[in-house]
Structure formats: structure tokens, C-alpha cells
């Protein structure tokens, strides 16, 4: 029988512990986790990039729902444990769920500390600990105004930089005289303060907040002890954390500042372990992941009867604010027995200080250039004698033993046991060995197999250099493909930043995202125009000069500069009246060619541009609208005759196709979107090679997607079997909207699906009802602005200039 392992708290430490456990002994335990947060395990370190808009929540999930399912773990979300009954060996959650354990792990992390000054309980006083806090801050940033951050430590500064990036005015109040005084000496603290002020963030040091003032229960100002008052739409308290040990204390376990454990990670109850920030070990509590990961590895081993012990950690700190490089480790206070080496380069904004005792590094502070941080930290941890290289030590590793090395050579020169990833304690030899033994060739793979650079990410560059070094020329860095030569950003970043920074015009995107050309090129402008149309359907003013000619004039240009016109024929159905109208137009304008297309429409080819509005006017009178045969948008819905006529038809495929087409026509999509509905699996409308297809069967409708039959050939994937027509419409529309929001410009559905995963799409559209409905609603909203027939608009005079020459000169005038 498997033993029962229960874990309280689903943070970063137990997540890592379980990975070790499942790798070493997957069959030992039945695991149940209780988490107070309503979600899976995510990388808490990356909340700051989410706040600043550089990443999304999806990007920082460590274990998704599938992971728990695959490993047989029961995860209770939104279930805070309130009682541990040590006699019955049971835990009970506030929601009334109970679970028995053989072994229990307490991993409750820590709680942000709130200074109990008057007003601390007003609406708008926030802390910075989890995703909900980030969402609250983002909501506040939407409303604008000033954010006051109390606390100039790591968290406070990351919050301040993030809120500033979101467009708020920001003031940081710090009690001490320099920022991050626990990690930085005053000189580095000063440089840091200057860097923040250069970004337009006000920093007030020696600021003792005495009261938070409110209006109607909502914060409005912060008052300092000296009487100064500062306006505040929100206040973020980031003054420190306290191990969350109350639950352990209430259960009668030994608790000091945190839950006390021995080197074997056991609490005072041998069947109960503690792990992570809630722990006190040898009198120390930790607030960084590196030591927690070391504990996680030891605990996994203990749980399967191993004998690993945890003996404490030395930690190093980095600040994750884009553009500010800062590294600190060890002890850097001044003292009798200590010497220091300082390097300053004011022009370059560099400051480095090493604190030595007996020719050994005991502390390091680096500002402005931190590349040598891990090397100094390595010397510090190993307590190596540096007497021989003392003269050049501060210049870094590249200067040791001869002329400076290039970065590659410096990495090559690192000893095998040099630590590359501080967060996860991964050394050089482990990375190199994984690359060679497992045949890894990309940063993501190294991340997956070794965890190096998987947490705060600051060592990604080093890992890439190791890849380059190990693989030589065969290594091609998987840098994001830039959208075009005007930017280094890829499509995904651009789309995310458009949303995060609420950019609503092409010039705004180019300015804010630092485009390298003055007005873009023929690659980025149409892409940006689509992204803006798709993201801000009600607010964005479509820029026709950034559309390709076909979309600008609503017809397809031909090789001789004439145009073709394809009116919409809903579901491929037509009538004698429509055919007669087409015949009349062909005669009247002497249109040279008429063709039945592959998409069940009629194409009139060879029309002069000047004639287009008149052609459309006549077609419009007969009830035709544009067929969008030119659009990166919804093209055609092909149908077959279905139950109306066919002896095999199982459903009204023609009616359903027409219904879908009438619902989605006019919508712009990343690339063209073609659909089909077939009345039975004989599939006469070829639905199984379309972007989206439906195959009707007796029991309902099979929805297909991600087929291709152009440059590539690929059969569709099945989304699922749906019972009613109404639901089919909802699913298809939601799928179209998901693709509209996520696709790269010019990326067909099958390529998008390959990139993000068919399973992910199925999960979001088929299984997650709330999401599906939200996608559906957003599509319906955007259709309000899209379902306008572009032909009739132009017949009534819009864009007249497009269809007429500006002047006709008679040359005789010049004679």
C-alpha cells in the first residue's frame, strides 16, 4: 500500500520537492496538496515581470493541471488548512475537506508584514506576495494616479518599477537612509536610488510613515512623521515578510521565528516536516529560493528513507528590474578584521566592492556590471585564498592569469563545479553533462532537464554560452524571431505589450517599443494594424495605409493591375436572381473572365480599378455584399447539400454553414480563415482540411480544426463532439476569437495550433466553459464594429481617392 503524503501550501519549495520525489521514487506516495491560493504552482519570482507587463501569468506557471493529473496528485485549490490533528493524523481545511496523512509537510511560506499604523486597513492598501496582489495592482494602475510603496527593499523596488511601467506615478518611502541596506552598502544604495529617480520614480529615504489617510474608506494620502503628506491612489506595503508559522504553533509544534526543523527537515513531530520560507533552521529563516530548493532536495530524500542533511545556505541577491544590474552576496559590513577592494567607474556607472578577511572573500557588492557575481560568490562559498590574484581580483575572472578573455573564453575557464544558476544550485559540469548525455540543443531543453535559469532567469546568458561552448558551431540560439528588421521583439512580445501598455495606435507602438525605423515597413505595419484592430475593436482607428492593397480596396489585385471581385454567396448557395445580376454586371462592364472558384463562389476577373465602385453598386442592388476574398479574415464557409437533398445527410449542413458564415463574416483574423460543414462523414465539402470544419453525424456535430490544403497538406484535429447547433456556433466562435487574440500575423490556424498545442486549445475551448464564454463575448463585441459591408461603404463615397486618378493631363497643354 502506498503511504499518504499531505502537503500544506503549494508554493515553489514543495513544487520542487515533488519533482525530486517523483524522479527518484514515483510509486512511494499518494500525494494530496492543500493550497490557500486558487491556482496551480507558479514561479513567484516572476510576478514582477507580470506586473510590469513583460510576461503573462500563463508564462510563469510551473506545473499546470495536467502535471498534477499525470502524477496522480490531488490538488485542493482555495483550501486553507486550519487544523492539524496530530493524534488522528488528519488535516482539515476551512472549506471542510479533510485528509489523513502518514507523513505531513508544512510549506506555508511567509506572510507579508503590515505596519499597524492608523489607516492600514483602508481599501487600497495592498501587499505584494501573490498573483491576486499583482491583479489588484494592475487594476489600480488602470485607474491611474500615484502609488506609494512603503519599503525600499527588493520587493518594494520591483513593485515600484512595475507600477511605473504600468503608467502610475510612484513614490518609494524607505525608513533607512539608503535603499536595500540589508543587501547593499551605502555607495551602491546611492547609485540605485539615482537609477530609480532617473526613471521618474520618487525615492524618499529616512521616511517614517505615521498614518494612512482615507476618503470614504479608500486610501487618499500617506502622512510622514515630519508632517509631509503624499497623494496615494494605492499604498503597497513591502517592508518585510514573516514566516507563516501560526498553524504549526497552534498544533503544538516547536516554533521560534519560523517552524523549527533539524538538519533532516523534521519538526518536533517526527511525522511532520516543514519546508520553505516558513522554516527556521539553525536559527536562520530564508527569503530566497536557492536555500529552499536545497531543502527541497534534502526533504525528498528523507521522505524515501535517505540520509541527506541540510546544513544551511549562504545566499546571493539580484534585483530583477530590467535595466538595473545589481548583485550582492555575503557580509559586507566594515570591521577591524576586514579589508576591502573597491572599483568605481563613475562614467560607466559601475561600482564593485569586495570585502575580504584573511585573504578570503566574505562579501561582494556589484552595481552596474554583475557578470562576475557568480564567480565571486563561488570563491566566497569555497573560502578560497585569493592572495595570488589580489591585484586583479576586482576586475573579475577574465583578468586572471593573463590578458582579458572574451566572454566565451571566460565561461570556458570556469571550473567544473562553478555555480551557474544560483537559484537552483546548478553547476557548470551538470549543465555540460546534460547537454552532451541527453543531446540537448536549446535553452528551453537545458531548463527542463537541469532547472538552470528556470527561476529568476538572470543566468540565461551564461547557460546559452555553455550551450555554444559545448555544441560549437552546431548551436543556433533560439532567439525569438523578430517581427521584422524594425524591431528585436517577436510577435508574442509585441502583442503582449500592446495589451499591457494599452498601446492604441501604430505610432504609439513604435514609440513605446522603440522601433528602429521611423515609420515601419511593409512587414510590421500590416501586422501592427491587425493586432490593434483585434485588441481594441471599439477604440482603434484602422490605418488603411498600413493594409495591403487588396484589403485597402476590397478586391484582389491581378498581375496586370486590374482587380477581381468575388461577392459573398452564403454557404455556397445562390439563386437565379443572383446569377442574373452577376450576368448583367459582367455584360455592363465588359468583364473579361468569370470563374467558379474553389471556395464555392463566383469570381469576376479583370475589372479596372475605376470601375470597382460602380460594379459594387450594381451587385449591392441585387443584395450582394463583399465576399472578403482578399482578406486576412473570414473567407468562405463551404457546405454540402445535407438533409435538404442528400440521401445520406444527417443534419442540415447547408443551414448550419450559412448560419456560421452570417455570424462571423466581416471579422479580421491573423491569416485567412476558411471553413466548411459536411452533412455526413463522406465529407463532400472537404471539412477535414479546412481551418475549421464540421462533420455532421447522427449524434451531433464533430468540430474539426487546424487543417491545411495549400502550401502544406494536413488533416484536421478533432476538437470534440457537440450536441446542438447553438453549441457548435459558440465553440467555433470562441475558437476563432482565441486564434484572433493569439495568432501571429499571417499565421494560419494549423501553424498557431502547432505552436501552442492542440491540447491547450481543446482545454480552453471545450473544457473551460467560462473561458469559452468570455472568448465568445469578446468576439460578439468586436463584430459590432466589423460587420459593415465595405463595398456599400465605398459605393457611398468612402475612400473616393482610392478609385480615381488625381488628375488627367493633356500633354498638348505643354506644347
Amino acid at each position, binding site marked *: 500500500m502506498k503511504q499518504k503524503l499531505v502537503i500544506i501550501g503549494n508554493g515553489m519549495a514543495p513544487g520542487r520537492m515533488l519533482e525530486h520525489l517523483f524522479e527518484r521514487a514515483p510509486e512511494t506516495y499518494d500525494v494530496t496538496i492543500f493550497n490557500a491560493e486558487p491556482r496551480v504552482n507558479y514561479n513567484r519570482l516572476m510576478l514582477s515581470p507580470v506586473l510590469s507587463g513583460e510576461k503573462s501569468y500563463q508564462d510563469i506557471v510551473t506545473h499546470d493541471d495536467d502535471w498534477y493529473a499525470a502524477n496522480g496528485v490531488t490538488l485542493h485549490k482555495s483550501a486553507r488548512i486550519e487544523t492539524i490533528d496530530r493524534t488522528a493524523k488528519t488535516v482539515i481545511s476551512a472549506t471542510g475537506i479533510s485528509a489523513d496523512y502518514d507523513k505531513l509537510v508544512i510549506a506555508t511560506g511567509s506572510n507579508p508584514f503590515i505596519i499597524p499604523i492608523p489607516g492600514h486597513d483602508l481599501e487600497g492598501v495592498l501587499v505584494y506576495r501573490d498573483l491576486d496582489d499583482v491583479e489588484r495592482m494592475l487594476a489600480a494602475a488602470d485607474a491611474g494616479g500615484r502609488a506609494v510603496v512603503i519599503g525600499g527593499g527588493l520587493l518594494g523596488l520591483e513593485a515600484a518599477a512595475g507600477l511605473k511601467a504600468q503608467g502610475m506615478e510612484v513614490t518609494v518611502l524607505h525608513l533607512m537612509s539608503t535603499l536595500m541596506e540589508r543587501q547593499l552598502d551605502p555607495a551602491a544604495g546611492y547609485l540605485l536610488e539615482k537609477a530609480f529617480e532617473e526613471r521618474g520614480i520618487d525615492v524618499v529615504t529616512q521616511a517614517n510613515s505615521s498614518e494612512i489617510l482615507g476618503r470614504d474608506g479608500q486610501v487618499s494620502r500617506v502622512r510622514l512623521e515630519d508632517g509631509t503628506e503624499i497623494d496615494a491612489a494605492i499604498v503597497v506595503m513591502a517592508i518585510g515578510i514573516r514566516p507563516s508559522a501560526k498553524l504549526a504553533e497552534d498544533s503544538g509544534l516547536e516554533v521560534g521565528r519560523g517552524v523549527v526543523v533539524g538538519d533532516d527537515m523534521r519538526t518536533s513531530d517526527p511525522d511532520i516536516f516543514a519546508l520553505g520560507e516558513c522554516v527556521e533552521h539553525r536559527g536562520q529563516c530564508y527569503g530566497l529560493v536557492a536555500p529552499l530548493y536545497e531543502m527541497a532536495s534534502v526533504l525528498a530524500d528523507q521522505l524515501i528513507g535517505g540520509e541527506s542533511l541540510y546544513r544551511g545556505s549562504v545566499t546571493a541577491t539580484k534585483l530583477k528590474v530590467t535595466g538595473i544590474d545589481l548583485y550582492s552576496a555575503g557580509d559586507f559590513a566594515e570591521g577591524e578584521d576586514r579589508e576591502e577592494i573597491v572599483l568605481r567607474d563613475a562614467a560607466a556607472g559601475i561600482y564593485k566592492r569586495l570585502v575580504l578577511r584573511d585573504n578570503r572573500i566574505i562579501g561582494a557588492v556589484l552595481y552596474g556590471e554583475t557578470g562576475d557575481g557568480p564567480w565571486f560568490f563561488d570563491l566566497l562559498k569555497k573560502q578560497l585564498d585569493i592572495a595570488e590574484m589580489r591585484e586583479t581580483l576586482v576586475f573579475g575572472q577574465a583578468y586572471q592569469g593573463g590578458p582579458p578573455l572574451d566572454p566565451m573564453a571566460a565561461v570556458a575557464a570556469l571550473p567544473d563545479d562553478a555555480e551557474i544558476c544560483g537559484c537552483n544550485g546548478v553547476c557548470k559540469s551538470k549543465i555540460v553533462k546534460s547537454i552532451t548525455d541527453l543531446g540537448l540543443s536549446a535553452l528551453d531543453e537545458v531548463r527542463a532537464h537541469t532547472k538552470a535559469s528556470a527561476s529568476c532567469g538572470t543566468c540565461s546568458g551564461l547557460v546559452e554560452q555553455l550551450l555554444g561552448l559545448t555544441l560549437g558551431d552546431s548551436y543556433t540560439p533560439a532567439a525569438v524571431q523578430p517581427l521584422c528588421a524594425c524591431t528585436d521583439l517577436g510577435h508574442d512580445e509585441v502583442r503582449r505589450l500592446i495589451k499591457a501598455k494599452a498601446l492604441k495606435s501604430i505610432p504609439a507602438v513604435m514609440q513605446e517599443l522603440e522601433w528602429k*525605423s*521611423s*515609420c*515601419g*515597413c*511593409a512587414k510590421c*505595419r*500590416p501586422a501592427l494594424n491587425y493586432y490593434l484592430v483585434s485588441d481594441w475593436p471599439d477604440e482603434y482607428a484602422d490605418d*488603411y*495605409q*498600413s493594409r*495591403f*492593397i487588396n484589403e*485597402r*480596396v476590397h478586391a484582389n*489585385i491581378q*498581375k*496586370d*493591375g486590374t482587380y477581381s471581385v468575388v461577392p459573398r454567396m452564403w454557404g455556397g448557395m445562390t439563386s437565379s436572381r443572383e446569377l442574373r445580376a452577376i450576368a448583367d454586371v459582367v455584360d455592363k462592364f465588359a468583364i473579361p473572365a468569370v470563374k467558379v472558384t474553389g471556395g464555392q463562389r463566383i469570381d469576376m476577373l479583370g475589372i479596372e480599378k475605376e470601375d470597382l465602385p460602380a460594379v459594387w453598386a450594381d451587385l449591392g442592388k441585387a443584395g450582394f455584399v463583399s465576399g472578403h476574398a482578399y482578406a486576412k479574415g473570414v473567407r468562405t464557409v463551404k457546405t454540402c447539400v445535407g438533409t435538404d437533398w442528400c440521401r445520406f445527410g444527417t443534419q442540415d449542413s447547408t443551414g448550419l454553414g450559412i448560419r456560421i458564415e452570417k455570424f462571423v463574416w466581416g471579422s479580421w483574423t491573423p491569416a485567412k480563415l476558411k471553413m466548411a460543414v459536411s452533412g455526413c462523414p463522406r465529407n463532400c465539402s472537404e471539412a477535414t482540411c479546412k481551418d475549421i470544419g464540421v462533420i455532421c453525424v447522427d449524434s451531433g456535430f464533430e468540430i474539426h480544426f487546424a487543417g491545411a490544403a495549400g502550401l502544406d497538406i494536413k488533416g484536421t484535429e478533432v476538437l470534440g463532439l457537440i450536441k446542438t447547433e447553438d453549441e457548435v456556433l459558440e465553440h467555433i466562435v470562441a475558437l476563432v476569437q482565441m486564434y484572433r487574440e493569439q495568432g501571429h500575423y499571417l499565421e494560419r490556424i494549423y501553424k498557431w495550433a502547432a505552436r501552442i498545442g492542440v491540447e491547450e486549445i481543446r482545454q480552453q475551448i471545450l473544457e473551460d466553459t467560462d473561458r469559452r464564454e468570455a472568448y465568445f463575448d469578446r468576439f460578439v463585441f468586436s463584430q459590432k464594429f466589423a460587420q459593415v459591408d465595405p463595398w456599400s461603404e465605398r459605393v457611398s463615397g468612402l475612400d473616393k*481617392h482610392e478609385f480615381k*486618378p*488625381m*488628375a*488627367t*493631363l*493633356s*500633354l498638348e*497643354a*505643354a506644347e
Partner: protein
Amino acid sequence: MNAAFDGWVKVGKLGDVPRRGARCIKSGDVTIAIFRTADDRVFALEDRCPHKNGPLSQGIVHDGCVTCPLHNWVISLESGEAQGADSGRSATFKVKRTGDDILLDLRDVHRAGRR
């Protein structure tokens, strides 16, 4: 005709041409595309791509260039030269702005017409 006629004729107003866009002028068999850039400079090219005669006036205008609508060659508005790896040249015409008016040098157009 006025004796002082110097060849320049008014062909339209700046506002007739969309920013980062073009309008055409027909003169016999020749079509001339008048381009207006984002910073309101104007250029005139024959509306024929050196590749396969694509109508350049229908392309996307960016910086000092236009991307042909048929196969994406990029043509300099100033010189008419194809950019990058492609080679070829479209005819250019003298064009200038006086206040809001766009003027074209007809003597230039005439030469093209006789070509």
C-alpha cells in the same frame, strides 16, 4: 499659354494624397504615381515596377520607399531604384510643393511620353 510657362503644372493639393499613400496622374499612356511620405515629402515615379510592371501606387509606403503590391520589391521613392538584392529602376519625375499645391514638371513627363 502664358509666355512665362516654365514647365511646372499644378496637379493637385497635398491633401488629395493620403499620408504614406499615393495618387495617380494619367498622361496619355503614362501613369505617374505621386507619393506622399509620413513627413509630407512628395515624390513622383512612373507607376510601373521594374520587376513585372506592378502598379507601385498601390503599394505600402514606408520611410522613403514603396513596397510593390505584386511581389514585394522595395523601390526608393527618391531614385526609383530597387533596394536590397533586387535590381532595376522605375522612371522618376520632377515634382515639387509650393505651399499646399503639388506641381509636376511637364517637360519631364513629356520626355517619358515619347520614350
